[in-house]
């Protein structure tokens, strides 16, 4: 009975999280297209629904009903599997991201997270890096030059930035004394961890951009050189899954983790704690602002060269992350 109860609650929660994420991601595409439009001084989608509001639904219908071409010489099993391998780990990070403290409605305690495991941050890092296989295998299975080069480029980028990201996360972990994302938020009630960890925050911003393949790090699908990179041979929904996973779900989830690590999670903004705004809203407001920051970077900066990216990862970001650990250690010794 205990087994059935746990499984049912988990399944319901997971379905809510995944459906929410899908709908959210659909409207994040509209947000991105509108934003990109205004950055480039054009209106963006306008015609489907009032002010283009139904565009994501039209997009989804279009992608789903497109003819699903599979080239003759691809490795069919891996070709299908790769799109899932890129998509599923991005969704799985949601399992460890908490969206607030437990609260009670009608006498039932509701926990707005799937699991509060005490190595949550490590697991988020692990799932984030597993999605690298989707990209490499997509490149290999396509049996074509451009996807192969795109996949290998992405692998080189990810290997470099995963290391820097891992070291950058050490700072907040040291301050909170825990890997649990919920405990990290609770440790920030008085002062946000951005204060001594500013270097780590800079490193994390670069790593999130690199890991989600947004400009200036989108060498894996640099359309001027590689046609479409590792997605060149994909069509229809299989094609749609890659940008959905990387550009929207991964960016959103990694923004949420960054907010939890550096901006106090669902704690209110300093000096505004007296406002009658629920913790939930504070959290999504911060995540939204950070997401918009990533969009802003994406649509204004040009792309790095491949060698510049790896050089930046190993020669600048890694030393910065290590310096941050040193600074935080001194901070902890002085301020306890």
């Amino acid at each position, binding site marked *: 009975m*205990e*087994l059935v109860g*746990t*499984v049912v609650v988990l399944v319901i929660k997971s379905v809510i999280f995944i459906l929410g994420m899908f709908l959210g991601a659909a409207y994040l595409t509209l947000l991105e297209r509108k934003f990109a439009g205004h950055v480039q001084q054009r209106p963006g989608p306008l015609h489907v629904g009032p002010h283009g509001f139904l565009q994501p639904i039209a997009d989804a219908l279009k992608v789903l009903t497109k003819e699903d071409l599979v080239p003759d010489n691809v*490795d069919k099993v*891996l070709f299908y*599997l790769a799109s899932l391998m890129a998509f599923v780990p991005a969704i799985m990070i949601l399992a460890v991201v908490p969206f607030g403290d437990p609260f009670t409605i009608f006498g039932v305690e509701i926990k707005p997270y799937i699991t509060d*495991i*005490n*190595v949550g941050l*490590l*697991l988020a*890092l*692990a*799932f984030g*890096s*597993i999605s*690298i*296989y989707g990209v*490499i*295998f997509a*490149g*290999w299975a396509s049996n074509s030059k451009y996807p*192969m080069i795109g*996949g*290998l480029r992405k*692998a080189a980028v990810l*290997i470099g930035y*995963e290391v820097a990201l891992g070291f950058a996360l050490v700072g907040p972990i040291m301050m909170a004394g*825990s*890997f649990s994302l919920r405990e990290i938020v609770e440790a920030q009630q008085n002062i946000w961890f951005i204060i001594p960890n500013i270097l780590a925050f800079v490193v994390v911003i670069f790593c999130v951009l690199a890991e989600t393949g947004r400009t200036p790090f989108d060498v894996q699908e640099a359309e001027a050189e590689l046609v479409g990179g590792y997605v060149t041979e994909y069509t229809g929904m299989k094609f749609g899954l890659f940008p959905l996973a990387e550009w929207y779900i991964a960016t959103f989830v990694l923004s949420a983790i960054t907010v939890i690590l550096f901006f106090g999670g669902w704690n209110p903004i300093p000096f505004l704690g007296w406002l009658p705004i629920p913790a939930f809203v504070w959290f999504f407001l911060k995540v939204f602002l950070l997401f918009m920051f990533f969009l802003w970077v994406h649509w204004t900066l040009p792309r790095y060269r491949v060698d510049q990216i790896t050089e930046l990862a190993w020669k600048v970001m890694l030393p910065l992350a290590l310096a941050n650990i040193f600074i935080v250690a001194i901070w902890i010794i002085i301020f306890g």
Partner: protein
Amino acid sequence: MELSTTGFWVFSTLAVLSAFGVVFFRNIIYAVLSLISTLIMVSGLFFTMGAELIGALQILIYAVAIVVFYVLVISTVPEFKGKAFEPKYMIVSLPVGFLIFIELAFVSLYGAWKSNTGIFTSEVIQEVGNVKAVATMLFTKYLFPFEVASLILLVAMIGAIILGKKEHVIDEEAEN
């Protein structure tokens, strides 16, 4: 049936099946894919036993950081070069493989017999969590071996950098 028992059977079945895949797939990309699957399933086994730290590190280090280099090498080598196989090597590989199997079996049996003699009982670990228990041991009792291991890794890294460094060829035409 409890959740952890169900989890154990699911994960261990899948781990064994994928291990068969590693050995028997003719296509090496599929073999590597099965290896990733095995490692992730073993990490699932760690989770069902309450060793979350090792489980998470297993995914992060083995399933990603190490295997990704196998994948990079294998996926860039043309398939016909991977087919060279000479049965005469079996004379060496069979006995060596058997020895390693004996060693692993001995270590696992020894570990099962020895497991309850550490200073942390399972109640204490429930209380303080995996991470703190490991850190306490690592930075008190085993501090010296830990530092020595990190020094060896540092030396190995410097060695690898020196070995991999190419002679710097100055392209005179490019400079002019």
